[in-house]
């Protein structure tokens, strides 16, 4: 496992998502209310790009006609077959025990720390004024 600097934290604002390539893998980073999460950008079903899907909450109900909407912005719905994944954990809603998207640890690190290493910087310069997204892969 190594830490990879993928981009500036400000590039993925609240409610947004962005895809980065890390060691040949497409990784999508989400910003959910200021928290960052990194998932493999491939749906476990048929490998669709999750980044192209819909960010949503989750609708739940105990009986027909009475629906609660909660956790807005915390789910990604696959752009093809609509499978719902919890961005925070990578687990599918319908079968959380068996089906999930691969998740990677991601953190924000100040540029000042990064310039000292030992991080793998990608192809852009790191400045000590900014904060950066760092993915463990």
């Amino acid at each position: 496992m190594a830490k990879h600097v993928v981009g500036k934290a400000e590039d993925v604002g609240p409610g947004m998502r962005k895809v980065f390539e890390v060691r040949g893998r497409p990784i999508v980073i989400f910003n959910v209310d200021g928290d960052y999460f990194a998932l493999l950008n491939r749906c476990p079903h048929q490998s669709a790009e999750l980044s192209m899907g819909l960010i949503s909450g989750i609708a739940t109900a105990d009986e027909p006609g009475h629906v609660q909407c909660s956790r807005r912005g915390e789910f990604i719905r696959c752009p093809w077959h609509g499978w719902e994944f919890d961005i925070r954990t990578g687990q599918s809603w319908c079968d959380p025990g068996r089906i999930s998207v691969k998740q990677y640890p991601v953190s924000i690190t100040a540029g000042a720390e990064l310039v000292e290493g030992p991080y793998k910087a990608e192809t852009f310069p790191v400045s000590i004024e900014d904060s950066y997204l760092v993915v463990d892969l």
Partner: protein
Amino acid sequence: MNETIPSPKHSVHTTSLVGIADCDIHPELKDRYGLHPYLSKRWRDHLDQYGELGFEALAGGYLYDGYTPLALRRDAWPGEGLPGSDLALMRKQHLDPNNVVFGVLEPMVTLGNGGRNLDLSNALCTAINDWQIAEFVEPEDRLRASVMVVPDDAVSAVAEIEKRAMDARFVQVQIFTGTTEPLGHRRYRPILEAAAHHGFPIGMHVGGRLGSRTASGWPSYYSEFHLYNAFAAQTQIMSLILDGVFEQLPSLKVIIIESGCTWSIGLGERLDMLWQRMGSEVANLKHPPSHYLHQNIYFSTQPVEEPDNPEELNDLFEQIGWDRLMYASDYPHWDYDDPRYAFKARISEEHKALLFRENAKKVYRIL
């Protein structure tokens, strides 16, 4: 039962084949005037003023909206226009990366042959046929067209088939699984005879006049609607067999598209069982119903069925017949099947060749 879902690491190595066939691709109009260049002024004006006279409650929308916008893949929207209208994007997203060398167009633009005004429907069908060639097949020689015909106007339908019969850019006659009556009924026979005579298979795609979808009334949800497409397919298969179409036209091929296929195993067995006891009602049949199922009916695989144990797919396809099945993507609909990842079973090279190419070659008489 398996505890884990196989990840899409398991891929079907289709690049070892010399390209694949896809028997269900949906072209789309650039916009609501997209067909106008192919229509006379009379019909352009008619459409603008009266629209199409359909069978359902809404003037312009779908009674059963998909769970994605227009039931399309969320990532297939070009910068302008609808998914399926942009050939460049279709190439980039599907034809090129998946090495599709032969793709059959299934137009679902306007109501096509599904509307109530048959004169309008005839005009639309012939326009759609011209449009497919001009805007998709001509610029992209990997694509082939379907002959859209109006089932309830047999005379015009036969004329349209004869008009296109010598044009190798058309590879099938298209009839939706939703027809006014089951397709084995007399009024449709001349159309089926013309198709058989000219060697066209009939591509039966979901859609058209599906009516109440069930024999107990209308569904409330898209979640129901999506299941009930298979009912129309089964209704048609039963009628084609029991009304003696295949006894009369043993060479006619009918492709059931986007309706599933594993239910056909039980259907054949059930029909045979009933025929053992009540075959006297259909005395024209010389063989048990499953004979015709295996002789005349083909299935596209999309949306691929997903048994709990993915390896079962091999056994199920074996029972249906490896020579009966053809891969389809249904690009750009939401329930698209990626040729690399849709099939979770380990399929032999020999069977892959049939599924992804050889059956299509035979059925569509190409390559």
